[in-house]
């Protein structure tokens, strides 16, 4: 074995590649969050018509994050992206209480998908910078999260605008995967 391939092998061990799916209703802040993760400019983001994908490094993992548009007419296409998902991240607009039930029903439907069975779930309670953002307990209630018993789930309060809380959420993702 040549030196190069040994080096490559050594390097490839900690670099586990993970596929992360970012879903949520339109306007939740998925694309803003993705750009924030990749330290990109978050001005001028428009509603996503298809998908965006970015790779970010975290704790020895290479995370391939897929951000899919959340508009109602696009939601039926979400299922095209379910295969081989390691973690599902579901983003919600914590200030948009009117839509908690809708986003909860949409999430419940997602979790019934066989391809996502047992996949750990992180809920980013986004837009916490807004004065009327709901706290985690209200979101858990509004989205009926206690009915999810077939997988580990976690709520992370965050703001894709300021970046607050995003890293903590990704740390949880990496920790919940390490034991696998």
């Amino acid at each position: 074995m040549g030196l190069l391939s040994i080096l490559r092998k050594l390097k490839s061990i900690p670099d586990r590649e993970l596929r992360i799916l970012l879903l949520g209703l339109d306007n939740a802040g998925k694309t803003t969050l993705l750009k924030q993760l990749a330290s990109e400019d978050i001005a001028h983001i428009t509603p996503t018509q298809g998908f965006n994908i970015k790779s970010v490094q975290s704790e020895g993992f290479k995370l391939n994050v897929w951000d899919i548009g959340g508009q109602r007419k696009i939601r039926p296409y979400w299922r095209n992206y379910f295969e081989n998902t390691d973690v599902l991240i579901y983003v919600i607009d914590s200030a948009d209480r009117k839509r908690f039930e809708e986003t909860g029903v949409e999430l419940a439907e997602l979790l019934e998908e066989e391809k996502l069975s047992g996949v750990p779930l992180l809920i980013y309670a986004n837009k916490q910078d807004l004065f009327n953002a709901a706290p985690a307990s209200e979101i858990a209630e509004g989205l009926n999260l206690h009915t999810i018993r077939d997988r580990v789930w976690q709520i992370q309060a965050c703001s894709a605008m300021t970046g607050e809380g995003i890293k903590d959420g990704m740390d949880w993702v990496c920790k919940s995967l390490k034991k696998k």
Partner: protein
Amino acid sequence: MFSVMGNCISCWKRHREPHKEITLLLVGIDNAGKTVAAKGLLGESIEGVAPTVGFSSSSMRYDKFDVTLHDLGGGKKIRAIWKNYLSEAYGLIYVVDSSDGERMQESKAVLKDLLQNPRISGKPVLVLANKQDVPGALDEIDVVDQLDLELLVNTYKCPCRVETCSASLGQGKKMDAALRAGFRWLLETIGANFDLLHKRVEHETALQREAEEQDKRERIARVKKAQEERAKAEGQNEEDCCS
């Protein structure tokens, strides 16, 4: 042919050693050490634990029990979810950070709230006075005193045992012997009262499931209706702008 045989062996085994399926809740305020204790009991590595703001559940086989352990987040902002898990519990493991005297009153109030809930009163409770390795940690007597535990468990008729321990000692062979002994006591107590507890849990969870199903149907109907109304309004707007 093989599958038939396999089935026979498994029924025979089941007859010989019927195992009891039970669910336990790990509760207590944030930072008490619930997740570390859970991992120790499950024999998983206790390195790099993050605060739980949600739900994590694992199963293990212990003697004649199939134990499902629900580890729930204890922070102020997530505690409200606990009420949804009470009916399925056969017993509680309540974890206290013995080194944090300042939060004992908070912990006491939270424990009282749990024990007085009709879905918990009467069920066995293991109290873990955790973090004994921290210098100055309260001992068993002080913890019992500060939580007003005797009065609480007598009032709400909960069989109770207190163990002082350090969940962070490790998992497997390194695990704190007191933690293991407490866990064994909890399972034995549940085993001794199994039929009664089982009936109670079956009944209360069935009621809860029914209510949840009903609630789910209503939610779906409301969301559908709102979506239809929105679609109609959008159609109206388009007509308005085109005419």
